[in-house]
């Protein structure tokens, strides 16, 4: 029933969008023309002729001729790669001779930076900008995936293959250890809330429709990020959404529909192999638990998943009011059954101007409704459930699913639950709504037009709630009588006021330009969630969950000076002073300065004669940035938490709710990062070959890290505090080239490469004390596998060195005596590689032949290691049975190791997970104008095409280097149609 409504809704959305799109059209007459090269007079085939403000257009034929239906008041826009674009009003003319002049690629293109814009040629910092035309294609669940693999120094990793999972984004690897490493994301001038919300904990950014995004700018070095002060250490991503143009009404519609299939899964024993192991090595009691079925549990829990993404946008101008309106509908099933994410988005922006453009307003409102269906964690069961027993037991108990039943007739405590029953009997959905609005006012003073006042009011509001239902008969909550409860709403409220003055003047006498910005920001965050109770089906309270109310505030003053002399020498200086509510009064304010210099060598007279060189620029910058995310709002205060009902202590006859003091560090302060960046930009052959090289070093001080709390000093085993320093350095390289561009062929390619290394310099709570190893990363059965140690890279695997017999078989429990004292104990653990790659490479290319375009992008990580948790945790005979009622399948690694017990800390399971992935392959055909009112574009795509790796687990690219019950990333086949009217 639920399925039908969901599909019905999808169909309805589609039809609605189509019909709106088709309503709009116009009336024209036919004009014709010829396009020639201005200097030689040769005809230019393959040039694009588009009616301005529409997507109606044609391409000139082999003789450079074209004809197109137009209205008299329309304007032709003629473009061809490497030539200047021309605008020619029709004005009653019916035939044209058009001369195109070759173009020197302009450095006047502006790039969005923090609190302003800057000409590309004047940039002094390490900034990468990706525009919508270069975004990744295909079904894109969340904005960050648009630029995955496109920017050097940026690592974007989807957390899993589930549509409800988000991504982690790391710019230059992040600067912190345990505090947040997420970059600051600024959407149309509004710094967004970090983290998630009830009902969408992992994928908050996905509430922004990727199709509404015009460009994404990544600020990497301290000189470009320091204007964001205390939130800048991990880099900044500025997202600019599409705005209305002042041209005529333009309607576009696109629809992408996809099928996702499962790829590699955990490598478990086949049914026959499993039978052999149980029969040969199991106890008689275990042999008795073998059934006669042959169930492929993975086939039972995974499916071919359907996804659709549809977008309709309308832009143009009403009177003096440029607008853009867009609607989007996205729905994606997961390859794990019952998993789904659905999103409906609406986006309106209007940008009127007044008083001869002295006053510009821009109002944007983006809304989204997100509905998720969360699948139960059936991946473990899919891998390990006994393949010799059937899905259905034949009895009506426990929903009819085969379960491990104890002698008293109830499901065995802590048994693995039938994964199919787990999925089918678990109903967890959430509804999340988010509205992000911004209002910009930009006023150029009448008496001094060089001076502007800009203010932005931003508001980001989100609300999330959800419901969980599990029938009382289901094994998963059998003892407590199922689940039936709602949670939320959690409300998140983020308000922003930005005000700044900007003075920009060409000082002709001094042959200089000067740009000064000074401003003030106020931003406050509030997150509340209501008290709720986890109830069973009978309404009995299973667990009360406390209400939450978290707030914090940031006040900031900032300024920037950009000065350029003779377009050759450039200086940028910024400073920001931030005050946060998260620290005590003495530590509350921090100042974050930066300075950058650049020299455009190519503008110097001694290089000006060099025609081949179109750009050569040297850059250097230094800056101090801060970091205060990932720590609590009240971490410096001695907070007391009252216990919930069910966690009281009884005195006499009275249950007493207890007061617990929370761990705190009263002198908590910013983590600060000092960084140097040196860059070289170059462009050759009219910038058909261009690129940049960056080298940077970074020292993070007063590092916010979670380290063991000395016993007896605080109220936790570990504590987040300012403890140490981490140094990092890296090299980044970007190259963009257009080797071929002619009538029929265009070939673009771009390549980026990053090298990064990090070292922990100091990690002691008290200076001069002995070095401590601080456990880090994910755990299995409360074993940690990674460690933070002074003098080493962060999060290195901390394991025993496995010993092997003569035939190469690992010997159970035999490890190298690293310290040579004759004992094997935790002093023999050693640091063995880290999950962070040494090199990250990205490559994309596209080839156009006439109307066909084929593109692909590949990504590689080299030197990253993964702990194959699935192999360890299911790879010992002991894991075949945790209780007397159930058998569990084993990992194929058991056949190699023959381990009796799990060898948690053996380096046998730490594997080199270097990989090369082809992320996507697209084939596009541009039909052009197919009727007089519509142009059409069709694309076929495959995403996640192949992975080349020696890693034996599910996927070499897993969060935190831990492969445990990983939800596999699907391979996605999709077809996309784009229409413009």
């Amino acid at each position, binding site marked *: 029933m639920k399925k039908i409504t969901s599909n019905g809704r999808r169909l309805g959305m589609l039809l609605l969008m189509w019909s709106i799109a088709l309503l709009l059209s116009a009336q024209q007459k036919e004009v014709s023309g010829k396009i020639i090269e201005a200097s030689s007079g040769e005809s230019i085939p393959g040039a694009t002729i588009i009616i301005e403000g529409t997507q109606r257009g044609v391409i000139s034929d082999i003789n450079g001729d074209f004809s197109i239906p137009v209205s008299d008041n329309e304007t032709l826009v003629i473009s061809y790669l490497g030539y200047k674009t021309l605008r020619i009003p029709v004005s009653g003319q019916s035939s044209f001779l058009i001369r195109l002049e070759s173009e020197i690629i302009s450095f006047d293109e502006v790039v969005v930076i923090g609190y302003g814009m800057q000409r590309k040629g004047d940039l002094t910092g390490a900034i990468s900008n990706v525009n919508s035309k270069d975004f990744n294609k295909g079904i894109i669940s969340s904005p960050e995936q648009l630029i995955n693999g496109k920017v050097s120094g940026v690592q974007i990793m989807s957390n899993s293959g589930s549509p409800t999972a988000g991504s982690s984004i790391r710019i230059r690897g992040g600067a912190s250890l345990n505090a947040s490493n997420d970059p600051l994301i600024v959407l149309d001038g509004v710094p967004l809330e970090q983290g998630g919300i009830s009902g969408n904990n992992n994928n908050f950014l996905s509430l922004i429709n990727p199709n509404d995004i015009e460009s994404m700018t990544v600020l990497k070095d301290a000189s470009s990020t320091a204007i964001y002060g205390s939130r800048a250490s991990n880099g900044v991503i500025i997202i600019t959404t599409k705005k209305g143009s002042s041209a005529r009404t333009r309607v576009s519609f696109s629809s992408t529909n996809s099928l996702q299939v499962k790829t590699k899964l955990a490598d478990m024993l086949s049914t026959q192999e499993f039978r052999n192991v149980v029969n040969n090595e199991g106890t008689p009691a275990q042999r008795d638990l073998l059934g006669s079925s042959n169930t492929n549990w993975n086939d039972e829990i995974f499916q071919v998943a359907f996804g659709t993404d549809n977008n309709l946008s309308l832009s143009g101008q009403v009177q003096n009011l440029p607008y853009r309106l867009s609607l989007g509908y996205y729905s994606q099933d997961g390859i794990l059954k019952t998993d789904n994410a659905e999103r409906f988005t609406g986006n309106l922006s209007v940008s009127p101007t007044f008083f001869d453009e002295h006053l510009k307003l821009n109002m944007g409102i983006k809304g989204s409704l997100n509905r998720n269906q969360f699948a139960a964690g059936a991946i473990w069961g899919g891998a390990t459930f006994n393949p010799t027993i059937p899905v259905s037991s034949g009895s009506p108990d426990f929903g009819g699913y085969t379960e491990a039943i104890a002698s008293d007739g109830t499901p065995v405590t802590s048994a693995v639950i039938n994964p199919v029953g787990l999925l089918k009997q678990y109903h967890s959905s959430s509804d999340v709504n988010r509205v992000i609005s911004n209002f910009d006012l930009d006023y150029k003073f009448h008496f001094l037009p060089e001076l502007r006042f800009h203010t932005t009011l931003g508001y980001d509001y989100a609300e999330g709630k959800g419901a969980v239902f599990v029938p009382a008969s289901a094994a998963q909550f059998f003892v407590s009588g199922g689940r039936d409860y709602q949670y939320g709403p959690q409300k998140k409220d983020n308000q922003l006021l930005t005000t700044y003055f900007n003075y920009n003047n060409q000082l002709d006498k001094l042959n200089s330009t000067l740009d000064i910005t000074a401003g003030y920001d106020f931003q406050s965050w509030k997150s509340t969630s209501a008290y709720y109770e986890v109830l069973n089906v009978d309404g009995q309270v299973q667990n009360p969950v406390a209400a939450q109310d978290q707030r914090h505030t940031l006040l900031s003053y900032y300024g920037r000076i950009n000065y350029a002399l003779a377009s050759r020498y450039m200086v940028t200086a910024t400073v920001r002073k931030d005050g946060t509510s998260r620290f005590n009064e003495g530590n509350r304010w921090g100042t974050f300065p930066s300075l950058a210099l650049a020299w455009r060598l190519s503008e110097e007279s001694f290089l000006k004669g060099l025609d081949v060189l179109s750009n050569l620029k040297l850059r250097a910058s230094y800056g101090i940035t801060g970091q205060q995310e990932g720590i609590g709002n*009240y971490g410096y205060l001695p907070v007391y938490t009252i216990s919930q009902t069910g966690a009281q202590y009884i*005195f006499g006859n009275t249950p007493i709710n207890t007061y617990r003091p929370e761990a705190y560090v009263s002198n908590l302060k910013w983590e600060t990062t000092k960084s140097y960046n040196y860059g070289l930009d170059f462009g050759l052959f009219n910038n058909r070959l261009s690129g940049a090289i960056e080298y940077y070093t970074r020292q993070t001080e007063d590092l916010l890290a979670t380290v063991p709390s000395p016993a007896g000093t605080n109220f936790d085993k570990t504590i987040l505090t300012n403890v140490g320093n981490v140094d990092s350095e890296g090299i980044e390289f970007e190259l963009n080239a257009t080797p071929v561009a002619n009538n029929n062929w265009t070939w673009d390619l771009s390549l980026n490469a990053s090298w990064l290394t990090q070292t922990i310099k100091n990690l002691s709570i008290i200076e001069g004390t002995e070095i401590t190893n601080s456990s880090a990363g994910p755990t299995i059965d409360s074993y940690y596998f990674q460690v933070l140690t002074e003098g080493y890279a962060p999060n290195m695997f901390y394991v025993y060195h496995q010993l092997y017999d003569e035939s190469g078989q690992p010997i159970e429990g035999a490890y190298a005596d690293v310290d040579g004292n004759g004992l094997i104990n935790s002093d023999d653990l050693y640091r063995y590689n880290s999950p962070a790659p040494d090199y990250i490479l990205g490559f994309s290319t596209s080839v156009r032949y006439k109307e066909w375009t084929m593109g692909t992008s590949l990504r590689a990580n080299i030197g990253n290691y993964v702990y194959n948790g699935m192999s360890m945790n299911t790879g010992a005979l002991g894991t075949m049975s945790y*209780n007397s009622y159930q058998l569990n399948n084993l990992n194929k690694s058991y056949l190699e190791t023959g381990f009796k017990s799990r060898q948690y800390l053996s380096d046998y399971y730490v594997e080199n997970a270097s990989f090369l992935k082809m992320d996507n392959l697209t084939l596009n055909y541009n039909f052009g104008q197919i009727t007089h009112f519509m142009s059409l574009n069709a694309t076929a795509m495959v995403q996640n095409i192949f992975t080349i790796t020696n890693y034996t687990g599910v996927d070499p690219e897993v969060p935190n280097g831990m492969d445990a019950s990983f939800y596999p990333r699907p391979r996605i086949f999709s077809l996309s149609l784009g229409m413009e009217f």
Partner: protein
Amino acid sequence: MKKILYTLLVVGMASFSACTDDLNQYPNIEETSESVYANPDNYISALAKCYASFVTAGQGKGGEDPDLSSNNGYDYMRCYFNMQEAGTDEIGSTWIEGDNIGNLTFLTWDAQDPWVADMYYRSYYSISLCNEFLKNSTDSKIAGFTEAQQTAIRTFRAEARFLRALAYFHAMDLFGSVPFADENLIGSAALPERWEAAEIFEFIETELIECSAEMTDADHTDYGRAPRAAAWMLLARMYLNAATYNAGDHYSECMTYSQKVMDEAICWSRNMPNYSTPTITSG
């Protein structure tokens, strides 16, 4: 029109002076130590946490909202039981692999073992809770309360000292020479010093003798709270094993305090509430 603009500008400018008071943010639901200890009624809740830390693992039912952010999630007593028993013939675990007590069972544990590490931190967690309570219930801090309230809090204080001594006893018994932290250290930046087992022994001994004098007798003790005989019992137990802690021979004191416990003649049922059988529930 321009006027309106400039008015807008002035308003915009005015917002520059938004007050820095907004930087003073305090918890809206949770309390701070200041607010908790301002109210004499809250002391019993803070003491109850000292007690509860021996048997529960968090502030939510079944150990939800755990006390320690990075451990197994098991409570003090389960850790203590496993530490004491898993390596002996007294139990035969049917869930060695699942419960991960192989190291304890086969006597191959070290500091990395989750049960060992958790037991260590759980005992110091209880010690810290008691220290925090003692730090906030000194005579000067409670001077503003009524006489009756002060009397009650002094008894709480004695019980907190007993609980701290109990946790120190477990730490000393299991780990030997251990760090020492009292109420003067908690909340300061100082690091605890490592004390020899014999020094810890001496501290526990002094504490128990002192606090037992201020604790109630069994007849006047609510269910769930420790009477003075509990302190004596702990003394007797520690004296019995004193040589193990390099504290010499204390058999006669052991006899003295054992006798005192028997003289107190605690009857299990006397102060029990009307529960037919005591039950222990878990998650």
